[in-house]
């Protein structure tokens, strides 16, 4: 906190010294939505007041795939109209060449952030982006139903499966034919990579591609984890789950038609909305663990960062903005207003946050189990790797081959894609 205030003060004074003629016009592009944008604007207003710069927000569609394509094209063409980009946690290695190295500028503050997050944004020793907030999913469960059937929140997938089945059957017999046991993100897209990575990782099956670049996915634990998930489809999860993304699964869950639900923190406040049928009837716990060797709960690391375009006409002011947006001050505001998880460890013990968003300190436990997707080792090939992985998993879930078969093919494909090195 102190350092930050100091820094902001320092920068402000620098600006003042250099003169207000140096006030820059900046543009930040953001795929953030609704309240998020409003929040961003409010913070930028502060920034403008502090520094004399003006910042325009260029909103983008919330689809991360759309954003990524646009940003790539803009950056490839050397677009000078955008100074600062909001980036997904997995993009850093793919866009690293087009962003400025922030190591020097952020050397005083990097220590405050979770090292794992800083690591995820560092490519070949270059700090590509500064973290703005982080994200990690949890297992949502229906307090009322678990109580009714005398169950405790599950800690292993097997336990979750059994509980889900029992309650689902019971509820269906009780007159809710729409009841399901568990909904998650099963469509063939990045979300499935997240979900499946959790199953594999929690079952001791590694993280697809290890940090050193080894392709580890073709192993028994991984296969067992994915096979187990395939078993859910049509039993505790609807067939349609194969097409669900976050919103579809939340729809089922929020109508009260599922016992368990895997989702990001955003579903928490929405589930407690005034018109929600399950308001106050649910809670969250870390995702279950598997039962293989080295099994532990695992949550895929999400989150957003800010990066500075190397084509920015005014890089210094842009860096200033990036530092501001990742500062403890803004992150605290963000946590309180947006229930976004801070990347600064100290904020989890912050009393104001705990008071405003009691869920956040609880999420620290979940966050500590967070695993990054293998974007760092696979570098520019990450999207293709992820696509191959989710396709293999989706095939298995759809009943096209067993996990063992599909993972073997996946390994071959990945090896080919990797070539000599990522």
């Amino acid at each position, binding site marked *: 906190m102190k350092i930050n205030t100091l820094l902001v003060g320092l920068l402000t004074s620098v600006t003042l010294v250099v003169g207000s003629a140096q006030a820059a016009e900046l543009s930040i592009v953001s795929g953030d939505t609704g309240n998020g944008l409003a929040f961003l604007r409010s913070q930028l207003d502060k920034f403008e007041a502090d520094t004399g710069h003006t910042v325009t927000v260029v909103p983008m569609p919330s689809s991360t795939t759309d954003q*990524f394509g646009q940003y790539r094209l803009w950056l490839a063409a050397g677009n000078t109209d955008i100074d600062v980009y909001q980036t997904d946690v997995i993009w850093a290695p793919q866009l690293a060449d087009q962003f400025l190295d922030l190591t020097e500028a952020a050397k005083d503050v990097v220590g405050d952030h979770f090292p794992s997050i800083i690591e995820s944004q560092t490519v070949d020793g270059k700090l590509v982006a500064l973290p703005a907030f982080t994200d990690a999913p949890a297992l949502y469960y229906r307090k009322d139903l678990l109580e009714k059937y005398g169950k405790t929140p599950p800690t292993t997938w097997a336990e979750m499966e059994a509980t889900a089945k029992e309650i689902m059957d019971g509820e269906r017999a009780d007159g809710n034919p729409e009841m399901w046991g568990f909904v998650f993100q099963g469509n063939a897209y990045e979300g499935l990579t997240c979900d499946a990575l959790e199953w594999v990782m929690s079952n001791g099956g590694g993280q697809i591609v290890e940090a050193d670049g080894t392709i580890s996915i073709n192993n028994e634990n991984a296969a067992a984890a994915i096979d187990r998930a395939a078993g859910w489809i049509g039993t505790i999860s609807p067939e349609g789950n194969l097409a669900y993304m976050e919103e579809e699964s939340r729809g089922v869950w929020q109508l009260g038609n599922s016992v368990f639900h895997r989702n990001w923190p955003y579903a928490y406040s929405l589930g407690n909305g005034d018109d929600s049928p399950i308001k106050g009837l649910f809670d969250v716990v870390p995702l279950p663990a598997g039962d293989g060797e080295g099994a532990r709960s695992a949550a895929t690391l999400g989150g957003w960062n800010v990066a500075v375009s190397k084509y920015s006409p005014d890089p210094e002011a842009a860096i200033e903005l990036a530092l501001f947006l990742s500062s403890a001050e803004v992150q605290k505001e963000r946590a309180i207003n947006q229930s976004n998880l801070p990347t600064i460890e100290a904020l989890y013990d912050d009393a104001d946050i705990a008071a405003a968003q009691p869920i956040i300190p609880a999420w620290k436990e979940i966050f500590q189990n967070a695993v990054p997707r293998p974007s760092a080792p696979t570098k520019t090939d990450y999207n293709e790797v992820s696509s191959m992985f989710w396709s293999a998993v989706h095939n298995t879930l759809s009943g096209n081959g067993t996990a063992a078969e599909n993972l073997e093919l996946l390994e071959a494909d990945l090896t080919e894609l990797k070539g000599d090195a990522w």
Partner: protein
Amino acid sequence: MATEALAPPAAGAGPRIKSELTQQRLRAARWFLVPMLIALAVVAGWPLLRSIWFSFTDASLNNLYGAEWIGFGNYLRWQVLESGTVRWRGLLVDGAWWNAVWNTVRFAFTSVFFETIFGMIVALVLNAEFRGRGIVRAAILIPWAIPTIVSAKMWAWMLNDQFGILNDLGMRLGLLSQKVAWTAQAETAMTAVLVVDIWKTTPFMALLILAGLQMIPKDIYEAADIDGVHPVKQFFRITLPLVRPALMVAIIFRLLDALRIFDLIYVLTPNSVATKTMSVLARENLFDFDNFAYGSAQSTLLFLLIAVLTMLYIWLGKVRFDGGDR
């Protein structure tokens, strides 16, 4: 002088006489075509050439300007392994690509086929005189008027297995025994995409055919009525031949559009292997994956494939484009 020796005899077999009229018309034609040609050259010509050029390089979006020429490597290349076996690589031997080609062609022909039939029916209905025709005409256009990204999402919503109204309707009417995840299952995904596309683009077809119908002089029908020609026969003998030029053009443009189908599938079933088309695959490689050159090669090949299919269509359909008496 040499030129005089070459000059033809003054009378008789002189050079073709170009009258003022012909000259005026040719001059006008030139001026009329110039703006179009300039517009197309800049807006399409240059970008096309860029893309084709990229397809012969190792370009990636991270390094667009430092791309190096690699010839046909993106299309076909080979590698001799230590064991001596030759491994073929590249677009032409890429299974995913050919799957996409098959999906695209299947999709395009099926959808255009049904659109033509439905479009014709709708156009004939709209060409008839009845009360409330204006309202119906406006209603027909609604599917075409809704932005594709929205209608795709809307249908995704309606086709949803849990809260989709179509499943609910099917269950209520007893057409479905259980809720179907239309877009999720490989077997139904293509059908779902087809239904939405046909729904969405039939108005386009209908309107163009209607315009064609409107250009047919009414008295031809009156004459046929007096001759006692059966309406069905009238349709095949009078309507169809007369509306054919308009119909052929409508089909060409729908076909071109359908072969490039992107946004609908991108929104409805983005990653399903059963519906992934050439454009969707090309986008993936161009922007999502780090394979800009490979994606350019796919675009180029897509262009060639469409060109071949169009030629075939024009040749088979005997579409006249150099006709006209003047």
